């Protein structure tokens, strides 16, 4: 015997307590609360699927669900493709490449709040972007005042912030693409575009699936960007609200409807779990090929 029977549990105790008390328990409690009419003051009766019936009739839910889904669908293609192109630019060890890679990563370390504030200023009706638009002969655009444009602006910010992060993942993957594949394709007379599609992309498919999954999950969970660009309102009339924005506005504060917010949370969780399962399935098919 190398240790007393309880020794491992002493090592595990802090971690287990934190995870059980502040992740697992709230998670299970959320599932229970989703079927009650609990309020911020506590209490709550079991109400079956009432919350979900209400949700189906709640226009705010449909707006939020549509926006979150739209967000997820729109940010995935640019986040899979653009960081790959940047990684290919930054892959070759030309002089000064370290400076470039470091600079490309900077948006990742800045918090969502800092990024949100910077872009709120850039996209302001009198901000830098609109000044450029005007200088080019266009008219000022209401990036932050039109509910659709607000959503698009927020997606742009999300993509901008993701470029450096996914670039690093791609750089690691590109380093593992066998060089001789490229050389063989070159000997066969394949141009750079052809080589990109028939050598690089197939070799990077597992990485691309991973990045698609990560960016989809993060896209559906979007909160900070929309919150900050809209000044906490979720856009004019709440038309740019998303699932997480809705959850925190329904469940927070003294008038918080905890039961309904939990039902919304459960829907959010099920969608994200679904995404995860799809990814696992895609990856398994990958292995069989």
């Amino acid at each position: 015997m190398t240790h007393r029977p309880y020794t491992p549990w002493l090592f595990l105790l802090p971690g287990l307590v934190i995870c059980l008390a502040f992740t697992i328990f709230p998670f299970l409690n959320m599932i229970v609360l989703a079927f009650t009419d609990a309020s911020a003051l506590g209490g709550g009766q079991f109400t079956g699927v009432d919350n979900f019936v209400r949700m189906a009739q709640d226009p705010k839910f449909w707006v939020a669900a549509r926006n979150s889904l739209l967000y997820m669908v729109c940010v995935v293609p640019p986040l899979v493709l653009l960081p790959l192109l940047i990684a290919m630019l930054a892959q070759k060890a030309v002089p000064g490449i370290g400076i470039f890679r470091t600079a490309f990563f900077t948006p990742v370390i800045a918090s969502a709040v800092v990024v949100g504030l910077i872009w709120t200023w850039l996209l302001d009706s009198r901000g830098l972007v609109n000044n450029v638009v005007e200088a080019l002969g266009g008219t000022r655009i209401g990036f932050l005042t039109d509910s659709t444009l607000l959503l698009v602006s927020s997606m742009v910010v999300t993509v901008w912030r993701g470029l450096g992060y996914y670039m690093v993942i791609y750089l690691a993957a590109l380093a593992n693409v066998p060089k001789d594949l490229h050389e063989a394709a070159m000997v066969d007379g394949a141009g750079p575009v052809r080589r990109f599609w028939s050598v690089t992309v197939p070799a990077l498919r597992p990485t691309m699936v991973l990045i698609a999954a990560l960016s989809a999950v993060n896209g559906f969970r979007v909160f900070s960007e929309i919150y900050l660009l809209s000044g906490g309102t979720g856009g004019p009339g709440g038309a740019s609200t998303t699932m997480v924005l809705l959850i925190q506005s329904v469940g927070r504060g003294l008038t918080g409807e905890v039961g309904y917010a939990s039902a919304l949370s459960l829907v959010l969780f099920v969608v994200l779990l679904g995404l995860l399962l799809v990814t696992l399935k895609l990856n398994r098919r990958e292995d069989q090929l």
Partner: protein
Amino acid sequence: MKRSPVSLALRYLGLLAVLAISIGPFLWQFVTSVKGPGEDVFVPDFIPDDPTLANYGAVADVVPVWSFALNSLGVASVNVVTNCLGAAMAGYALARLRFRGRRFAAVVFAGSILVPFEAILISLFLVMRGLGLTDTLTAVVLPGAIAALNVLLLRNAFLALPAEVEEAAIIDGANAWQRFTRLALPSVKGTLVVVALFSFMFSWDDFLWPLVVLSDQEKYTLTIGLAYLQGTFVQNQRLVAAGTIIAVLPLILLFLLLQKHFFRGVGEGAIKG
């Protein structure tokens, strides 16, 4: 294989374009923060006429930005210590000790990784209220104090260590805690640095949870303090810009000092959703 100067020039052109896109917005914010009251901040002029640091002092007059920063620093520092120590202890037990119930513990940590924070947001708030901790910095720290992902990262690091060294220590009569602190911990320094950095960054940058759990302005962390500043003083963009630079500068410095570990952390943490 020939490398034409044209293709090299094109590559640099592309790199410079991406550089402008990544850094430009920060630069603009910085330029705005050093423009004096006499200068029109709406004019797209990247070179301030008369650069001044006055806005950094002025922002502290309207909101207690330095005390927000201190709150953030405190929360982030505690998070670094609890994550490094707590996750290493748990990871060590999972990787190196044999006992009944190890599977149960592993399932708890793996399950925790799968729970998206946003889904437990409201329910977690109720837990904190039950504990009487709402509106305290303790409540801000606790949920991420020992992240399950870090436990698994460190477990993997400990699993990669050769068993022989520890077997020798067992024969010498070293107990589990001595083996952990003297042999195992020093051997996983690289992973610990990654855990420390990312714990600091996630904590310093966290927005949603402090926004929900804190309401007293005195307890505000820098992120929600800044959102509040924007909501209240959006007329004076110079002050908001100065506040943002205060929030991002420490991380940029940290990053420049330890960038190798940041890049490693992205690789190891890529599974985190």
